[in-house]
C-alpha cells in the first residue's frame, strides 16, 4: 500500500476527467428542450435561483434563435452564468423546482441550456455589457472568486474603477481551485475570468494576499471602498488522534492540487477514506477514485437522509464505485512508521434533532476498522479566523459580520460570499457580490 502519483496514462486521465455533463451536440437538440419549456409565469425556477436568473425568458430566447439575448439575460443576473451552468447543484435549485417534476416528467435541462447560450457568448466574445464612463471612484476588491468578480463587474458597469487583489496566480476562486475537474477545466475558468474582466475598468493583481502583501488599513486609505470576498480556508480538523500522520490530507488542498498541478502530479493512496458527505467530500472521493485509487470509502456519521450533498452528487460517487459507510464516526487514525494504515470508526445511531434540524448521531458501543493508506478530511471548511481577527473585523467564529447593507464593522469595508456565510454555492457567492456592489454604489453616492 502506498500513496503514489502518476498512476495512469495521459489518455486514461483524460478519459477519467472528461466533462461529466456534456453540452448539447447541436442547435436542434437544444431547441427540442427549449421548446418543452412551458414559459411559466413568476416561475419557480427563477425563485429557486439565488441570482434570480429569468430562466423562462432565456430559454424562450434560445427557442427564437436569439442566443445573444439569451446570454445577456443570464449574464446580467449572474456574470458567472457560464461556470454556474457546469457546477450548480441544479437538482436542488432551478431544475429541482421545475414544474415538470410535479408532472413526473424530466425537468427542463436548464443548466445545459444555460451552458448552450453562455458558451457561445464566451467563445464568440460577445460584448454584452457597456461600461459607463469612469466616475473616478475607486474600489478595491479582495479575492477574484465568484463574489469578488461579480461585485467588480457590477461596479465597473457603473463606471467605478475596480482593482482586484488575488492571492493565487489565477482568478475564479473556488471555481478554479475547489471543484471537481470533471465539471470545469482550468482553461474554462481562465476564459470565464477573462470574459468578465474584458468589460474594462477591472484590474486584477495576482499573488497579492491580504495580511501578507496588503492590509485593509492601506486599502481603506487608497480606495473609496473595499469589498472582501476572501472565501473560506482549509477543512475543519477532525480533532482525533493520528491526524498528523503522513497520508492524512485536507480535501480542499487535495482538490486544489489536482486543479493547479495537473492529474499526474497528485498522489493518491490505494485505499482511501473520505470523511464527510458534502459536495467537497464527493468531489474528493470521486477524484481520488479517478486518479487511480483502488478503493474509496466515504465515512459519514449520519445517514443519507441528513447528507449535505445532493442525491445527484451521491450518484456520481456511487457510479464511480465509491463505498459508503453511513452512521460511522472516525475515532482515531492509526499508522505504521508514521504513515496511515488504519481508520478506526465508531458505529453511530440517530438521536434527537440538533440545531440544524437534522437528527444528531449518537455513539454506540460498536466499532470497526478500515484498512486504509490515505484519509481525506472533508467535514466542512473553516473561515480565516486569524486573518479576520488581525484585521479587526467583527466576526462570528471567523465568519465576517455584515449588516443588511453588506457593511462590515470597518468604515467603507463591505463583504460577501463564503467569508460571510461560511461556505455555500458559487451561485450564492455571485449574488452576494451583486448585493455588495449595490451597497457600495449606494455608499459611494451618499458619501460624494
Amino acid at each position, binding site marked *: 500500500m502506498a500513496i503514489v502519483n502518476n498512476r495512469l496514462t495521459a489518455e486514461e486521465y483524460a478519459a477519467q476527467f472528461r466533462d461529466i455533463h456534456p453540452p448539447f451536440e447541436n442547435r436542434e437538440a437544444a*431547441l*427540442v428542450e427549449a*421548446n*418543452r419549456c*412551458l*414559459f*411559466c*409565469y*413568476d*416561475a*419557480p*425556477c427563477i*425563485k*429557486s435561483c439565488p441570482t434570480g436568473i429569468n430562466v423562462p425568458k432565456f430559454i424562450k430566447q434560445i*427557442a427564437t434563435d436569439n442566443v445573444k439575448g439569451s446570454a445577456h439575460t443570464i449574464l446580467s443576473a449572474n456574470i458567472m452564468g457560464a461556470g454556474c451552468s457546469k457546477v450548480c447543484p441544479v437538482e436542488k435549485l432551478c431544475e429541482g*423546482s421545475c*414544474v*415538470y417534476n*410535479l*408532472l413526473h416528467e424530466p425537468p427542463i435541462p436548464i443548466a445545459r441550456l444555460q451552458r448552450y447560450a453562455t458558451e457561445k457568448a464566451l467563445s464568440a466574445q460577445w460584448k454584452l455589457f457597456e461600461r459607463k464612463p469612469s466616475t473616478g471612484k475607486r474600489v478595491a476588491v479582495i479575492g477574484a472568486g465568484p463574489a469578488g468578480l461579480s461585485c467588480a463587474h457590477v461596479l465597473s458597469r457603473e463606471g467605478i474603477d475596480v482593482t482586484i487583489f488575488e492571492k493565487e496566480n489565477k482568478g475564479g476562486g473556488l471555481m478554479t481551485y475547489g471543484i471537481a475537474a470533471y465539471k470545469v477545466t482550468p482553461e474554462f475558468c481562465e476564459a470565464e475570468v477573462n470574459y468578465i474582466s474584458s468589460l474594462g475598468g477591472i484590474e486584477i493583481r495576482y499573488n497579492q494576499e491580504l495580511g501578507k502583501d496588503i492590509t485593509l488599513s492601506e486599502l481603506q486609505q487608497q480606495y473609496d471602498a473595499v469589498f472582501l470576498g476572501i472565501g473560506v480556508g482549509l477543512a475543519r480538523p477532525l480533532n482525533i488522534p493520528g491526524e498528523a500522520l503522513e497520508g492524512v490530507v485536507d480535501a480542499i488542498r487535495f482538490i486544489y492540487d489536482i486543479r493547479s498541478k495537473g492529474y499526474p502530479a497528485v498522489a493518491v493512496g490505494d485505499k482511501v477514506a473520505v470523511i464527510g458527505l458534502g459536495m467537497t467530500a464527493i468531489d474528493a472521493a470521486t477524484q481520488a477514485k479517478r486518479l487511480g485509487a483502488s478503493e474509496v470509502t466515504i465515512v459519514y456519521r449520519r445517514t443519507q437522509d441528513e447528507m449535505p450533498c445532493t442525491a445527484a452528487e451521491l450518484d456520481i460517487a456511487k457510479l464511480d464505485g465509491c463505498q459508503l459507510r453511513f452512521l460511522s464516526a472516525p475515532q482515531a487514525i492509526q499508522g505504521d512508521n508514521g504513515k496511515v494504515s488504519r481508520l478506526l470508526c465508531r458505529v453511530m445511531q440517530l438521536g434527537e434533532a440538533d440545531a440544524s434540524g437534522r437528527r444528531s448521531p449518537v455513539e454506540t458501543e460498536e466499532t470497526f476498522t478500515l484498512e486504509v493508506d490515505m484519509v481525506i478530511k472533508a467535514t466542512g471548511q473553516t473561515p480565516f479566523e486569524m486573518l479576520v481577527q488581525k484585521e479587526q473585523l467583527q466576526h462570528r467564529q471567523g465568519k465576517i459580520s455584515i449588516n443588511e447593507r453588506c457593511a462590515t464593522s470597518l468604515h467603507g469595508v463591505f463583504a460577501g460570499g463564503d467569508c460571510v456565510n461560511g461556505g455555500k454555492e458559487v451561485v450564492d457567492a455571485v449574488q452576494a457580490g451583486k448585493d455588495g456592489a449595490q451597497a457600495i454604489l449606494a455608499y459611494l453616492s451618499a458619501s460624494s
Partner: protein
Amino acid sequence: MADISANFLGIKSPNPFWLASAPPTDKKINVLRAFEAGWGGVVWKTLGTQVKNVSSRYSAIDYNNTRVMGFNNIELISDRPLELNLREISECVRLFPDRAMVVSLMADNDRDNWHEMIAKVEDTGAHGIELNFGCPHGMNERGMGSAVGQDPEIARMVVEWVMEKATIPVITKLTPNVHSVVPTGKAVVQAGTNALSLINTIQSVTGIDLDTLVPNPNVAGQSAFGGYCGPAVKPIALKMLTTISQDPVTSRVPVSGIGGISTWKDAAEFMLLGATTVQVCTAAMKHGFRIIEDLCEGLNNWMDEKGFATIYDFIGRSVHTITKWEELDINYHIIARINQDKCIHCGLCYIACEDGSHQAINLAYGKPYNTYTVKNAECVGCNLCKLVCPVDDCISMEEHRKGAAYLNWQEYQKRGLPLNDH
C-alpha cells in the same frame, strides 16, 4: 365493425379517404403504391395545358418542435405529357377497379378545349372529374384556377360547358381565396355540377429567410405567392364547408372535404360538417401513404364507440349546431375551476387571464410555488385559462346558469335587460 365505405354519386370507395389532386397523385407509380397501402381513391393531379415547373417549389411553417404545421407550394398542374397521364390513369383503373379514380382538369377557357379534355378523360375509364377552379399560383395568372373560382359568372359558364359533355359525375373544387365560397358554389350548382369539393389552397407567403431576405420558397433569389395548406388551414376549411352545408342551394349536392386533414379525427370533423368523402395531401406528402391505416382504423373504432354503422349515420350531424351568434343562449354561464391536486403552479392561466382577459384568477404568493384560484364573480367563462393550461383536465368549466330559460340576444334587447357596467 362499422362500414366505412363511401358512395359518392355512384363513385364507390372502400373508405372515404381519397388522395387530393397533388404531387402524390401525379404518376402511376405513386397511385399504385397508394392503392396498395389502402387508400379509397385518388383525384389525379390536374391535367390541362402543357406547363413547366420551377425549382424549388415548397416551403413550410414549423411551430416549436413540429415541422410542417403549414405547407405552401408554387407547383403548377401536372407537367407530364397528357397522353402519358391518360394511359397511366386507365392502367390504374384496370388494376384497382374498386377504388375511386377522379381526374382533376383545368383546361384553357374555351368550350372546345374543355369538351376535348373531358372526352379524353372519360376514355380512360375514370369514375369522375374534378374541376380545378382553385389553384392560386401560376395558373391563375393565365386566367385559370382560382381566377375562374373567384368569379361566379365565369365559373358558371365553364361548368355549363362541362355539363354539356360529361357523362360521369363532375365535382367542382372551390377556391378559399374569396370572401365567401357560397356565391361561386351556388353558381356552379345552378350550372349543374354534381358535387363540390373544398378547399383548395390559400394564397400565402410562408416567411422570409432573415439572412438572404428572400421569401420562401426561394427560386434564384425570387419567390411567388404560394398555395397554403396543411394542419394550419383546417379551421378555415371547416368554416367554409359549414357555409356550403348550410346554404339551401349548395347543400343540395354532396361535398368532398379538403384542408389540413391529417388524422381520422380531422376527417370525422369534416364529415360531421357535411363532407361525404375527404381528401388528404399534406399529411401524405409528409409521412407517406402508410397513414391510411390509422385513418381507417381510428374512424372505424370511433364509429363503433358512437354506434354509427355507416358513415351516413353521422355525415352532417353537427351542421345545425353552428348558428348565428344572435341565437346563442345568453343565460348559459360557465366558471373555471382549478383542480389544486393537478395544478403544477406554472402560472400560465393567471397571466393569460390577467393580461389577456378578465383578471379573474387570484395569485397567492409561495416560494417557489404560487397558488392560483378563480375569482368566481369575475370569471366570464371565456375558456382562455383552460386553453393555456398544460395539464389535461386540471381546469374545468362548470355550469352556473344565469337563468333557467333559453334567452338569446334579440330577446335580451327586446326585454331591455341590463348591459355590463364594467
